[in-house]
């Protein structure tokens, strides 16, 4: 009995020791993200180092591939073992989680940081659900960009950026004649959809774009716009190399960095890859908004904060939200990621020429939301299927395809 008592006391002392050690524990958080390419990882590191500087402990669970990371996240949520934070887009994808009560609101952080003043109203609306702020925005991305290799352009004898699609295709012919792959095509459905959207915006304008995606309008002008978009998309097939199917976007960017290819259609996160490779905008590579486009498609990233039932993690989530919205972090992050800061009150002078262009369009309001913001994940998937089927099917019957387009909203 005595020995039992001793053991028990020793146990209590031991437990007490650990409890004390635990109380001193720093706020620890596990971050799940799909930011694994060079530029993305560098950008995530900006948040990480500031978070650690302020006393947090960072556990990285990066998973390559947006879909793979999402699937892993949902598994963890269902298993009741949610990570402390998840990188995701601002839009309808987060809505289900919030309405199920699975996310922690970060209202007090937002109130203390005066986020209502710092963020554009549209963004503030998108991160709030039922009047409470749930998401911490990291940055906005423009998706209407065409990047080009300066060296490839000069080799092909192209002296200035094409203004119209006809000029653009003439330039692609020149690139082809110079023995350069004209378009570094990323062959995954989501990338193809982004190209579709940037062409669509150039054909129907911002109002027409919103009419299609936000109002689901099937009017004559909309159908005609989709048809013209598909025609341009179809013409691009002839300028793509044989290995394009399934290619990652950063592999496509690498083709520009090594001057093997002429242009790439991609969101401005591609700049992060150029930066990591030591290339500068305006000098080694150029960026232009898609021909004939008077606006820009945008998408915004944020951190989501699932409920974990752990007070330490809750504390860490608040600290992280604070760090993410810190003005210097926003700028540093944007520089590495190639994005545009979400806060409108930051020092913009440091941003590169491309980001300045994007910022101009953004502050002029010439922007339209990416499909992930306005469509449900099911509709986004159906849109990907539609574009991929048209692109890979080789059908040039844009008229019939345009009629089918509107089935994605059903």
């Amino acid at each position, binding site marked *: 009995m005595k020995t039992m008592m001793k053991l028990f006391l020793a146990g209590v002392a031991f437990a007490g020791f650990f409890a004390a050690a635990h109380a001193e524990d720093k706020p620890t958080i596990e971050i799940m993200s799909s930011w694994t390419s060079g530029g993305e990882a560098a950008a995530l590191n900006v948040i990480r180092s500031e978070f650690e500087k302020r006393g947090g402990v960072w556990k990285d669970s990066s998973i390559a591939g947006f*879909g793979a990371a*999402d*699937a892993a996240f*949902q*598994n963890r949520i269902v298993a009741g073992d949610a990570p402390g934070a998840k990188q995701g887009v601002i839009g309808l*994808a987060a809505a*289900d*989680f919030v309405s*199920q009560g699975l996310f922690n609101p970060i209202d007090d952080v937002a109130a203390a940081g005066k986020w209502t003043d710092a963020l554009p109203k549209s963004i503030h609306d998108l991160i709030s659900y039922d009047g409470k702020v749930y998401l911490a925005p990291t940055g906005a991305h423009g998706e209407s960009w065409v990047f080009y290799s300066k060296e490839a352009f000069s080799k092909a004898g192209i002296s200035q950026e094409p203004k119209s699609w006809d000029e653009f295709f003439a330039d692609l012919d020149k690139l082809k004649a110079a023995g350069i792959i004209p378009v570094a095509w990323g*062959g*995954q*459905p989501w990338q193809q959809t982004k190209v579709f959207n940037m062409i669509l915006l150039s054909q129907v304008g911002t109002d027409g774009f919103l009419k299609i995606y936000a109002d689901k309008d099937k009017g004559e002008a909309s159908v005609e716009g989709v048809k013209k978009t598909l025609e341009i998309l179809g013409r691009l097939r002839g300028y793509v*190399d*044989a*290995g*394009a*199917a*399934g290619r990652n976007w950063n592999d496509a960017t690498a083709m520009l960095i090594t001057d093997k290819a002429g242009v790439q259609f991609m969101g401005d996160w591609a700049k992060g890859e150029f930066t990591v490779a030591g290339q500068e905008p305006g000098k080694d590579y150029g960026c232009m908004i898609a021909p004939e486009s008077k606006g820009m498609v945008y998408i915004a990233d944020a951190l989501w904060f699932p409920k974990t039932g752990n007070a330490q993690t809750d504390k860490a989530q608040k600290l992280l939200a604070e760090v993410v919205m810190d003005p210097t972090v926003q700028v540093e992050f944007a520089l590495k990621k190639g994005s545009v800061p979400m806060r409108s009150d930051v020092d913009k002078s440091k941003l590169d020429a491309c980001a300045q262009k994007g910022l101009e369009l953004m502050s002029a309001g010439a922007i339209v939301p990416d499909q992930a913001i306005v469509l*449900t*994940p*099911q509709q*986004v*998937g159906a849109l990907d*299927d539609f574009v*991929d*089927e048209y*692109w*890979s*099917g*080789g059908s040039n019957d844009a008229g019939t395809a345009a009629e089918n387009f509107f089935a994605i909203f059903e």
Partner: protein
Amino acid sequence: MSVKRKRNLSATIALLPTWFAAVVVFIGTMAWSIRLSFTNSTLFPSSTYVGFAQYAKLFASAKWLASLQNVLIFGVLYVAGCLVLGFLLAAALDRKIRFESAFRAIFLYPYAMSFVVTGLIWQWMLNPTLGIQASVRSLGWESFVLDWVVNRDMAIYALVLAGVWQGAGLVMVIALAGIRGIEAEQWKAARIDGIPVWRIYVSIILPQLGPALAAAGMLLAMGVIKTYDIVVAMTNGGPGNATEVPAKFIMDNLFGRQNLGLATAGATVLVLGVVIAVAPFRYAMHMRNQAKGGA
């Protein structure tokens, strides 16, 4: 009498966990999935029933129909290819060659690899700008074309190729074990009769390998239903719908597209398909056993 009952009781108790697992884990989750397929669940399970709406949507989806067709083409060619190649390898190894165990290890080795690795290797080899096509062209044969992975009409056969490369080793080992179990007397008798070697294999050895090959075929067929990782690694279902398979369709809808209802409807159809395919087979076995028992 009482001893027997006691033994049964303890056996029953010992089997309880198994019963629990069978009822709750297997049948329970299956029932749960089937129930979900009749609801309008999106990201999370819902209890709003919508009848057969998800099934109607499923069979209106070109992607799903393409996936069924693909898995059929892939399944038949993959199982047949593995069986034929595996048997040929086993017969070749049986010819008392040198370094037999080394060959056996080499041919079986692919089976030890995950499908993801197999898929990636073959994707690289068949990628026109990286793999075989590029190397042959760099040797001077400029018009050489091997673009199966990126070709809509050929992509499914690229999957079959990679699958057979991986699965044939398993069949080889099973068939070889079967061949070694056949009595040497039969060989001697056939030799004396002057029957050519290939004829011995086809008419004498092969019929006796029936059960072994059936087992191997069953193992492979079960793999076909689950085909997912090799597709993701090699083509990700593309180009277009050309290599979409049901398992991938279900996974995509479960996670990426937050469409639990449609995904469980797909899974239910898949289970039903397996039941329909296996039931007559099981029934025939059952009847045969009963006939044996009666005799």
